[in-house]
């Protein structure tokens, strides 16, 4: 359950409608013992960022110096707030209860008489609480200053104008021969092609020449067999071309036509 407050109603307190509902009971007037100004009702108790926040709130409300906290009084108020939260069935986090215990401990230590000689060494029991409150307060302030910085999308805005032509230039990845070789070794090792596969016997240059011959030929027209050979390549080149043609024929990639024995041989690609 929440305390719901209509700010307009606060200005017109004499009016009948309930100011707030607490524990199901409608409030039609501000309680006399309320030391917090009415607008504080707008602050939901659940909006406190934990026990340190609540304590700082109590201290600020009283314009108290953080170094001069009357522990007994602050503890009493703190406990009242916890009671209020419990009445409103806010889930009370462990941190709040821990703080209550801490406050009670400080209070009891302050009440205990201290031997004169111990006084010198012993820190004031409030010191640690004050340190933590101060530390938290620093970051509360830092958060406020951070929030006040001119922020993109709220205060300043990125200026942009769409380019008329936006082409993305893509650089293809570089590859080196060693990469290629490594890839081949991997695939070959996996395929266990070595030892019994024809690759070992097969001439790479024959494979290359097979590609070249296929490119040279077309499917529509016959090409003269002799046109495939280039004398400048010498004997080895001729042998390679011849083997390439044989291999292509074996793989049924070419069609060979010879009208009669010793007549010119013609080749074309199978469609």
């Amino acid at each position, binding site marked *: 359950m929440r305390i719901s407050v209509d700010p307009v109603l606060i200005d017109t307190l004499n009016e009948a409608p309930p100011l707030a509902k607490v*524990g199901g009971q409608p409030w039609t007037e501000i*309680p006399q*013992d*309320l*030391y*917090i100004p009415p607008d*504080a009702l707008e602050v939901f108790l659940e909006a406190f*960022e*934990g*026990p*340190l*926040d609540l304590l700082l709130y109590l201290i600020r409300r*009283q314009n108290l110096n953080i*170094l*001069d*906290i*009357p522990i007994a*009084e*602050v503890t009493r*108020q703190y406990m*009242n*707030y916890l*009671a209020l939260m419990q009445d409103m069935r806010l889930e009370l*986090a462990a*941190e709040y209860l821990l703080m209550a215990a801490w406050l009670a401990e400080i209070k009891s230590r302050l009440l205990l008489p201290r031997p004169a000689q111990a006084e010198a060494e012993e*820190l*004031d029991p*409030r*010191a*640690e609480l004050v*340190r*933590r409150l*101060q*530390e*938290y307060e*620093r*970051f*509360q*302030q*830092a*958060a*406020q*200053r*951070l*929030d006040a*910085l*001119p*922020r*993109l*999308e*709220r*205060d*300043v*805005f*990125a*200026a*942009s*104008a*769409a380019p008329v032509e*936006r082409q993305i230039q893509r650089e293809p990845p570089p590859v080196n021969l060693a990469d290629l070789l490594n890839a081949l070794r991997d695939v070959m090792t996996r395929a266990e092609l070595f030892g019994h596969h024809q690759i070992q016997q097969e001439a790479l240059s024959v494979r290359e020449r097979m590609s070249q011959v296929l490119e040279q030929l077309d499917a529509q027209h016959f090409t003269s067999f002799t046109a495939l050979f280039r004398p400048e390549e010498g004997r080895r080149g001729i042998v390679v071309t011849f083997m390439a043609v044989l291999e292509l024929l074996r793989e049924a990639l070419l069609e060979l036509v010879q009208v009669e024995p010793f007549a010119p041989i013609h080749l074309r690609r199978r469609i």
Partner: protein
Amino acid sequence: MPELKIILEAVLLAAGEPLSLDRLLDIFPETERPEREVLRSTLVKLAADYAGRGMELAEVASGFRLQVPGTFAPWVSRLWEERAAHYSRALLETLALIAYRQPITRGEIEEVRGVSLSSSIMKTLQERDWIKVIGHREVPGRPALYATTRDFLDYFGLKSLSELPPLTTPRDLDVISAELERRASVTPDSPPLPEPFHV
């Protein structure tokens, strides 16, 4: 070929995000690449062009950004109904702690704030790319160490963390303690507080 200053203007506008000097140099083919110092002085000239205009050249952590100054927020914000997010106090306090105390663990944040930290806050901050995990503290549980990002600086218009508003200086515990003792001896009793709010 257009003037260098105008090319920079075009590129910054097309980018719509901060561009570092290196990235600005990279838009020129090697043979036409200006000197770094020339680039810098040209940017200064460009910035001067925008006096009294609807934009300004700002230098943030990731480089140079053309932006619409805050003076125009009243009109610009009417373009988008709900664009400028309002962040909760819890989120801002957490962000402040990470910004000023980085690298920091979740436990350390919780200790200063005195309250446990909701996961949604850390998630929001990470989704906005304002914070990131930069390592782990070598203690049991190896908690993640958080730090702010370059995007965080860009977003808040800062060139570096040193431009953050200064933190108020903490008071030394011994000083606090001495102060408390002194006061206690002067005024043993604090004035009573007004009546608390009862329900």
